């Protein structure tokens, strides 16, 4: 009995923590983090709460925040805060413990054979899995993911390799698509000869032969836009390309007699091959289009990977990191910038042709400004300057809204998309899979050595 008469004086529990001890050990940054977590919890409550409308402007806010459900979100926020605070306490220990493993990780990912293996595995999945998917996902895969991966790879050359901010990239895609619409028409209007546009080409072409044509047309468009504007630096280039993208869309929209205006071009035929022994017609069936796109993506991917590690790629890197220094070392900067621009433009021309032929219908609405911004988002999110990053970014960020379709109202999906972008940039600004060189540049900048990029020198001083 005597054992129970004198209970131990320490009431802090078996682990030795007491509330007072824990609260006392919290620093200023912990309290600030608590504020951030509470803010995030309330925002999340708002995102998932009820919607309002024009008659009941406050219904959405009151229904989401002034109801018992908000407690759930606050508890979630507290849990998140506790988790983050614990993590920051023990982060250094955990990192130190992982140090030997991190080295091997770098060795593994840097190994050429491992890279090749991952590439082959992804390719194998891309070949084998799609036929098993539902028609909805096949459609998403072909008309969204495939096309936008191609666009992202192209824009990666402009933004990721050469560091030129292009906000009107979708214009070249439009030019490619309308080139396809024009050349697949017929010079006459005999029965059965459908021309997608009111204007007739001098002769009829199979969409396949439009590919080289669209590449050349987009190349020329890229050069025409680039030659006068690439002398501008960073943000001026951004707004001019944005303006150019909008001009192209509005011109297409308003030139009714040439492009059919907002109604768009319809009746663009499917691809077909007819070279003696090789005969094939693409139809409404989605998988052949997927394999065509996949083949194009793989070819372009390998081509650009070679380019990245060539003399041209190194020149781009130099321009991206410091244009003045690049020019001083004898790199003809305008020439290489033009080259990046034209290569990016022609890649999106390819995507435009596939899109036009697969859907059979193109309209100015396909080429709005937000699409240019989205392609840029895919590139940066995936990892700046990295080709696998561009592919992963586009695939994931297109998959996400389509997956969300089942859970949230379709028009609300971009709330989550936008929030994800902000959170991602706060915690991992270099993207998911940054190129090794880019990751190093950004890491150095975080440590305080120089700027992360040369897009506008930090103090605003930049000749020319």
């Amino acid at each position, binding site marked *: 009995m005597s054992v129970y008469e004198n209970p131990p004086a320490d009431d802090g529990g078996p682990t030795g923590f007491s509330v007072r001890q824990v609260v006392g050990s919290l620093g200023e940054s912990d309290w600030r983090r608590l504020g951030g977590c509470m*803010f995030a919890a309330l925002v999340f409550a*708002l995102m998932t709460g009820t919607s*309002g*409308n*024009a*008659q009941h*402007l406050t219904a*959405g*806010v009151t229904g989401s925040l002034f109801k018992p459900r908000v407690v759930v979100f606050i508890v979630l926020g507290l849990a998140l805060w506790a988790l983050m605070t614990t993590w920051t306490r023990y982060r250094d220990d955990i990192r130190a413990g992982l140090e030997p493993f991190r080295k091997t990780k770098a060795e593994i990912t840097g190994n050429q054979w491992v890279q090749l293996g991952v590439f082959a595995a992804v390719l194998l999945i891309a070949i084998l899995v799609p036929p098993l998917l539902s028609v909805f996902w096949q459609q998403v895969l072909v008309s969204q993911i495939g096309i936008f991966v191609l666009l992202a790879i192209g824009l990666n050359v402009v*933004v990721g390799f050469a560091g030129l901010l292009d906000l009107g990239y979708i214009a070249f895609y439009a030019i490619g698509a309308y080139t396809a619409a024009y050349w697949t028409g017929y010079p006459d209007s005999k029965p059965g000869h459908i021309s997608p546009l009111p204007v007739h080409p001098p002769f009829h072409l199979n969409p396949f032969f439009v590919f080289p044509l669209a590449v050349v047309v987009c190349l020329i468009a890229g050069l025409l836009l680039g030659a*006068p*504007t690439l*002398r501008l630096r*960073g*943000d*001026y280039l*951004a*707004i*001019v390309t*944005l*303006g150019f993208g*909008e*001009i192209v869309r*509005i*011109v297409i929209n*308003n030139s009714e007699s040439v492009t059919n205006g907002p109604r768009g071009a319809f009746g663009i035929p499917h691809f077909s091959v007819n070279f003696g022994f090789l005969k094939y017609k693409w139809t409404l069936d989605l998988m052949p289009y997927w394999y065509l796109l996949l083949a194009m993506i793989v070819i372009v991917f390998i081509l650009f990977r070679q380019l990245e590690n060539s003399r041209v790629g190194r020149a781009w890197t130099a321009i991206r990191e410091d244009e003045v220094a690049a020019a001083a070392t004898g790199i003809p900067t305008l020439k290489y910038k033009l080259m990046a621009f034209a290569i990016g433009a022609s890649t999106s021309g390819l995507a435009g042709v596939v899109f036009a032929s697969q859907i059979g219908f193109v309209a100015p609405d396909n080429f709005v*400004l937000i699409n240019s911004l989205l392609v*840029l*988002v895919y590139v*940066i999110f995936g990892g*700046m300057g990295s080709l696998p990053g561009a592919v992963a970014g586009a695939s994931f960020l297109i998959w996400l809204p389509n997956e969300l379709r089942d859970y949230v*109202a379709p*028009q*609300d*999906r*971009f*709330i989550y*998309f*936008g*929030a*994800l*972008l*902000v959170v*991602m*940039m*706060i915690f991992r*600004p*270099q993207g998911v899979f940054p190129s090794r060189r880019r990751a190093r*540049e*950004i890491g150095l*900048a*975080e440590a305080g050595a120089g*700027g*992360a*990029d040369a*897009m*506008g020198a930090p*103090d*605003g001083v930049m000749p*020319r």
Partner: protein
Amino acid sequence: MCFTHSFWQLTISGLSDGFLYALIALGYTLVYGVLQLINFAHSEVFMSGGFGGLFAVQALVGSKTPHGVASVMYVLLGVVVGAIVGGAVAFVLERVAYRPLRRRNAPKLAFLISAIGASLFLVNIAGKEFGRLAIPMPNLYTNGNVFSVFGAEVQTNFVVIAIAAALMLIFLDRLVAKTRLGQGIRAVAQDADTASLMGVNIDRVISQTFVIGGLLGGAAGFLFGMVFNVQYNMGFTPGVKAFTAAVLGGIGNIRGAVLGGLLLGVVENLGVSCVQSAWRDVIAFGILVLVLLFRPTGLLGERLGRSA
């Protein structure tokens, strides 16, 4: 020429648009001045100002159109509430979407993506909370002709916008030129590192710059909503135009933003009289491209610090 027959009328409607562009453009230009980054979410600050003003005005104005002193007070109230909401959203925006990135010295493109994300988030959350239909503001006064200039009629809408905008522009100009805060903004714009060595609290100055830009943008949002409608996506077109105006005048340059805004508004309206109104945006962007080809840093050149 096509616009000669109604030159003055077009100029006046152009100035009306131009004042709004100028107010929004200042938000872009101020932030650009201190951070060298395009605040893509500024158009949503404008939108939130519109909603803020709408709430205030809807709560107080009945079905009857007020007049006289009451009208003035309501407009003033709307402008002030719109400005406060705009400033608050801009403040939170800076805290959430920019400051953590600045702490990490993140690359510029990361800021851009964060801004695009914030913009998408704000547009769509506004659409969710307030519906996606255009909401008309209650009439605060009876719009009519006040006086005429060279045969062109000047309406109440124009007078209200012009007076409100002019007062705010003068206020801002004095603020940046004369006050301690303005001195801080100019110092950070010229050279942030040196400014911090001289004892300027950079974080605070940047935060205050966002708030000032948000105040102007929010007020512009209310004025815009008063004349047109309030809608979740109302910020997009004025935002892109105002950004164009800021670049046109020389981004980072306060007087440049005002000049660019007014010029863009007038040229657009005069130009539309020559072609169909569907070509309006082509005119705006065409002017921009032309100006940048000959003056690559805008009409008045960049650098907030030197020209203000």
